Structure formats: C-alpha cells, structure tokens
C-alpha cells in the first residue's frame, strides 16, 4: 500500500504570540515550530497501516526550506521519503494549497492520502476535503476510527452528539481526528536513519489565493479574573452576581 501524509509546520501553540509590524502576520521572533497536532495522528495512522499491511509512507509539506526540519522529523518517525513543495510563504487559502498538493499527488499512485483534521495555526480544516474533491477521490473527514481491508475502508467520525460510520473504496483522501493513535516518538536510530532518507524539493504549484489575510490581531483581553470568595460560603454571592450582574441565570 502506498500512503501519502500531508503535514504542516506550525508554531508551538503554547507560546505567547504577538503580531508583526505588517499587522498581517505573527512576529516570528522567539517562536518554536513543530508538526501540527492532528498531522502527527495522521502520520501515526499511516505508519501503522504500512507496518501491518506492507507498503510505504511518503510525507509532503508545502513551504519554505524551514519545513525540511518538520519533514525530517516525520522521516525519523518512520516515513520512507519526503517531498517539500517549495513556496516562500504558505497561503492561508486552503484551496490554493490543495491545488499544489493535488498536482503533486495526482499521478503518485497512492492508495491513501492522509491529512490531520486541521492545521492548528490556520484552523481551517479545508485542505484535506478540497484535495479529495480536486482529485475526484472519495473523501472522509475528521475520522476517529479507521479500518482498511481488501481495498475498502470503514471509518467512524464524531458528529455533535452522535457518530457516523462510513464505507468507501480506495484510493481515498482522509482527514484524521485526534485520539485515533498516539504519535510515536522518533527513536535515536530513526533520527540517524532520517538523515539519509530521500527528501525531494519541487516548486509548489499553488493555486490563485482568493482568500487573503487582511489583518491579524490578538483577541480583546478578557477583563482580569476576579476571585469573589472562598469555600461554599461564597456560593450565595456567586448566585447573586450570575443573576443580577452577568444576567445569565
């Protein structure tokens, strides 16, 4: 089985962000980067399938040379080879990105193309289903449980208050929710091996961006927290505030 996993390099979300002088991007100083949370789950799913059923995992990422660091991490986890679709900037527009990925994946002969449910930075969750659509392949999003057998897949996805089970033929494009499989840590051997694995660099054939960032801002600060009391004796005061001040009860 040939599996592609598309991953994104994103800032560590635990960091404090500030907006750059152009007011359209994050100030990069001091930021640390990592593989997107959901992308890690997608890669783990791909690696486990390849281990159990035979085959190889290819990882792809769009962006400047800095994404090679993220790709090397994926290689260290066990992917066989990596492709950087080189672009100076990663557009916010999911369709522009999906067009670049679809152009690369189209003739790759992949049985499965995996994405995380969404990138934690742009938080759009659009590139996976858009890529499915552009390739004309079956697509299922936000999968929490997956079985692949005999050229077909069965997936479960969580809805609000219920869950759907879906069946589909391969090849297919899937996006993976968290919790499906805990991403493995790269072993020292894996890290050493990753240095010698092939990492191909190609120009990204990005589509036209119709969705553009006008500005970025930090959300308005919540009013500073207020401790109204200690212990159960503070309950009547809490109730009064909720009823008369916040008017939510």
């Amino acid at each position, binding site marked *: 089985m040939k599996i592609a996993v598309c991953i994104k390099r994103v800032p560590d*979300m635990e960091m404090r*962000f500030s907006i750059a002088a152009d007011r359209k991007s*994050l100030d990069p100083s001091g930021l640390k980067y990592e593989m997107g*949370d959901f992308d890690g789950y997608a890669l783990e799913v791909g690696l486990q399938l390849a281990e159990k059923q035979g085959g190889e995992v290819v990882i792809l990422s769009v962006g400047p040379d800095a994404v090679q660091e993220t790709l090397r991490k994926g290689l260290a986890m066990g992917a066989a080879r990596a492709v950087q679709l080189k672009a100076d900037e990663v557009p*916010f527009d*999911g*369709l522009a990105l999906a067009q670049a990925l679809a152009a690369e994946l189209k003739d790759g002969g992949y049985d499965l193309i995996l994405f995380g449910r969404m990138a*934690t*930075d742009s938080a*759009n*969750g*659009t*590139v*996976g*289903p*858009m890529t*499915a*659509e552009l390739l004309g392949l*079956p*697509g299922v*999003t*936000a999968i929490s449980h997956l079985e692949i057998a005999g050229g077909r897949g069965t997936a479960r*996805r969580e809805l*609000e208050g*219920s*869950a*759907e*089970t*879906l*069946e*589909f033929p391969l090849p297919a494009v899937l996006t993976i929710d968290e*919790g499906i499989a805990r991403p493995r840590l790269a072993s020292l051997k894996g890290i050493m091996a990753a240095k010698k694995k092939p990492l191909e660099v190609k120009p990204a054939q990005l589509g036209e961006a*119709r*969705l*553009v960032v*006008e*500005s*970025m*801002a*930090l*959300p308005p600060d*919540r009013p500073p*927290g*207020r*401790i*109204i*009391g*200690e*212990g*159960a004796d*503070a*309950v*009547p005061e*809490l*109730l009064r*505030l*909720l009823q008369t001040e*916040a008017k*939510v*009860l």
Partner: protein
Amino acid sequence: MPSVLAFAESRNGELRKVALETVTAARQAADASGGGEVHAMLLGGPGIAERADALGRYGADLVIVVEESALQHYSPEVFTATVAERLRAGSYRAGFFPASAQGRDLAPRVAARLKVSLASDVTGFELQGDSVVAKHPAYTGKVIVTLRLNGTPALLSLRPGSVTATEQPRTARVEKMAPAMDPADAKVKVTELAQRGATKLDLGEASIIVSGGRGLRAAENFKLVEDLAAAIGNAAVGATRAVTDDGWRPATDQIGQTGRLVSPDLYIAVGISGAVQHLAGMRTAKTIVAINKDKDAPIFKIADYGIVGDLFEIVPRLTEEIRKARKDH
C-alpha cells in the same frame, strides 16, 4: 439584486439549531447588501419538506427542497454536487454553511468544486463592495484573523453560536430540486448513524456548559457536575482532555484545542486548572465561573467569578441554591 444561499443542516429529519443560525446570517447578509433574497437548501429523506416552514420563519424567501430516500443520511458526494450546482446556477453573492461536523465536510468540497473562496469557522462577517470580510479565530483562538474573500459566491462556514437565530417571519416559497447526481453512484456511503443519548443537549448548542477536570478525582464524581447541570436545566456537560484521555468521559465531551470549541453564555469550570489547550476551547464564553482549590490556577486569570476552595463542598451547595432559587420562582 443577488441572492444569498444558506445550507440548512438536518439530522434524522429534524433541523439542527445551526440551520436556523445560517438562515439568520444569510438574512443579515442579504439585507445589508440591499435586500436580495435568502434561499435555504434543505436536503434529506422523505418528510424533510415539512421543515421548510421553519426556515421561512427565520427569514428564508425560498426553500429549495431535495427530498430523496437515499438522502436520509448525509452523502458527501451527493450533497456537494447538488449544493454546488445550485450555487453555480443561481448567481449567488454568498453561501453560508454551519461550521459543524457536516458543514466542515461539505463547504470545502463545494468551494473546491466551484473554485471559489471559503472562510471557515467564522465568528463575524461583513459585505464590503464586491468582497466579503470575515473574522476567524485561529492559532487556538489566540489570534483573530480578518480575511477577505474575493470573487462570488463567497462561501462562509459559521461557528455554531456566533449568530443568534432570530425569527424574521415570511412565507417561504418552496421549490423541489432533484439531486445533481444519482445517489447510487456515490462511492462514500454512511452506513450507520449512532445516536448517543438523543435527549442529551449538544455542547455546541447549549447556552450553559458545566465542565469538569481532574480536580474531580474520579469518574463517578462527575455526578456532581451532572447534578449542577440538571439543576440549572438546559445545560450541557463538558470535560477537559485529561479527563477524556483517562476515559472518565467520552472523547466527544472534550472541550479544548483538539476538541470542541464552544462559546456559551455561561461556562462553569469545576476542578479545571486552565491549561492552554483547554482555554483555547472556551475562552470566548461570555461569562466564566471557576471553582478550584488552587488560587494560582490559570483558570482564575480569565474567570469572571472565581471561588477558591473544595469543589466537593462548593458544587453541591451551588446545586442546592440553584434548585432553591428555581423553586421560589
């Protein structure tokens, strides 16, 4: 006058609350751009047409009904083909979807099919000249991105709860439409829709959420949280990732960066310290209450009302006081 399309999500033949929100948003967009029509699209199994009136009550001028026994369940392919065909044929200014599990699956496909712009998980929007400007919380809610959508139709998926469904009654015309592809040709098939506690209020639809963390110490102590939610009435129960990871609560109850993003009117955090991952999912709640024994817990930095102390004493007392207050009225 260009019209605006609203995708009206249903499940098991019933409209979801987000359907009324998308229609309300479409009404706002149409009125702001000079009073075009709102067309709501309603796809479902036999009987779904009966839900058209409700969409008229919330401001739809026309309800396009696609009633087909094979559409009892969502079909990514048939829904995409049919909604895209309507958007293509109708010269719409904008199309609204809910940023629900279904909407987040459907809207990107439709956008890719039509090669048009899509802003996801939008909390505010404005029509400006030929384009639409939308607000979208990104970076786990730590950055608000203002996006410009160029070209028409511009597609937006709205964060549940970001628009308040508002009645603006009119008598909607109904138009029947056939699916744009034969459902038998769809490759992806929903084979089962499992309802978990059908009466359980969904986190995304609840105006009040009571949520529990590790401070509860054991799965069975979640009864305190459930009792409080029940006393309030109309409140949903959420949990932190630590709690769902430990299996005290189902994964679907998780509120946070990698779980559900919620913006209720009132959020009561019980025994929750307030890790970044959790705050990302609930920091946009209008009022936050925190009950925690550690006065230095980060949750107190954003809580409008905090009580420091033993939740095992405070929560039952709160439940009791609310029950009493309810009885007095």
